[in-house]
């Protein structure tokens, strides 16, 4: 059976990891390659690199980092942040990225999803959606969640699936940073109405939250950052507990 996936997310700026990372074994915790190798060796199923600065000037640095990760890491990885053109995606894939994730640029120009999917295949196009509830409605937000739109989360997710997205990375801004669990109700609704994999993001605080998002949230993968970076949750123990709870997982 296909397993559920555990996905650490690394925030990158100028080719370096930024969010606090507290890994004892690393020579250089700011080096994404070191960190990625460490995560691969302890059983992460894939990795996401989010370029949070994503300036045009910094693009070369990010491409260089992607190439170094691809050289040294033997699990798949996704790169996101500031991607809005076919040429940029082509360059990232040529450097060895397995998937790219687009967010605001897809909202601004939805045809980008079709164009990327047609050119590179749905399997490498992840559409990331940041949303939060406003008056009981899940509304899509842009630019790292700072700009609200009128788009409904579920309608937008359905639209990008039809346009050729291969996967949805849904971050609940209501849950992100709370460590109180994932947005499982919305995740389950996404998983039931769409026929592509859903990655849950935002809210991971303990092992039970991962069990809940796979069972109640019907998520295909769960992404987290700080709980992994600070060693609050250790991936081998997390996966062992998931297995004990009869969740299909790679050990």
């Amino acid at each position, binding site marked *: 059976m*296909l397993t559920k996936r555990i996905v650490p997310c690394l925030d990158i700026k100028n080719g370096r990891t930024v969010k606090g990372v507290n890994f004892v074994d690393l020579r250089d915790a700011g080096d994404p390659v070191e960190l990625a190798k460490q995560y691969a060796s302890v059983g992460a199923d894939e990795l996401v690199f989010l370029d949070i600065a994503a300036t045009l000037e910094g693009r070369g640095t990010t491409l260089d980092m992607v190439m170094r990760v691809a050289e040294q890491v033997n*699990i798949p990885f996704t790169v996101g942040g500031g991607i809005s053109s076919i040429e940029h995606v082509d360059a990232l894939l040529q450097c*060895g990225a397995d998937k790219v994730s687009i967010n605001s640029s897809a909202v601004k120009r939805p045809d980008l999803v079709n164009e990327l999917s047609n050119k590179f295949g749905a399997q490498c196009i992840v559409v990331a959606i940041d949303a939060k509830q406003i008056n009981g409605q899940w509304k899509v937000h842009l630019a790292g969640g700072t700009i609200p739109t009128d788009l409904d989360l579920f309608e937008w997710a359905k639209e990008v699936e039809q346009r050729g997205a291969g996967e949805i990375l849904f971050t609940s801004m209501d849950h992100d940073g709370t460590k109180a669990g994932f947005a499982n109700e919305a995740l389950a609704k996404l998983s039931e109405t769409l*026929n592509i994999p859903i990655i849950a993001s935002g809210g991971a605080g303990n092992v039970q939250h991962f069990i809940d998002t796979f069972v109640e949230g019907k998520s295909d993968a769960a992404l987290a950052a700080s709980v992994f970076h600070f060693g609050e949750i250790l991936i081998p123990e997390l996966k062992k507990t998931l297995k004990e709870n009869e969740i299909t997982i790679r050990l």
Partner: protein
Amino acid sequence: MKLVIINYGAGNIKSIQFAFKRLGVDAVLSNNPEEIIAADKIIFPGVGEASSAMAMLKSSGLDTLIPNLKQPVLGICLGMQLLCESTEEGNTIGLGIFKTHVKRFDNTVKVPQMGWNVISNLKSNLFNGIKENEYMYLVHSYYAEHCSQTIASTNYGINYTSALQHNNFYGVQFHPEKSSTAGAKILENFLNL
């Protein structure tokens, strides 16, 4: 050891090149017939859409060269599928090495299958040192049906073929280059054939 990765414009081949580099082997990317024929081992990769990949093979004459290769050839992902008789993707006729057909997963499962799944009923020296039900990384919307050349199976809604072998031709649906240490072992086994 001269290892060539056939470079016909279909998808991400850097990852494969890097995976061999981690094993200490420098793979050459080439679409030059003479260079391909002179290789000891050949990787036939592929990511993307089948009919356009086949068109690229035809435009460079590789569609007639590949079936006549005598050295070990490893098709990966779409590369494996193009070595089959046909695929439903773009109604494409394949190179016909593997006597099976490639179909689309039906919508009772999420498509593409994306992630780690197990390979079982392993029947080839390609899998020396690989345990039954080892996890491999897969990303695909189409699958090969079982046939007498099946050397590994996977279940995703249905049981399907995740690896094939016919004489010097091998094919794997999964991505050994992205499948952690077990995947690296399979690539190493291929180098040792």
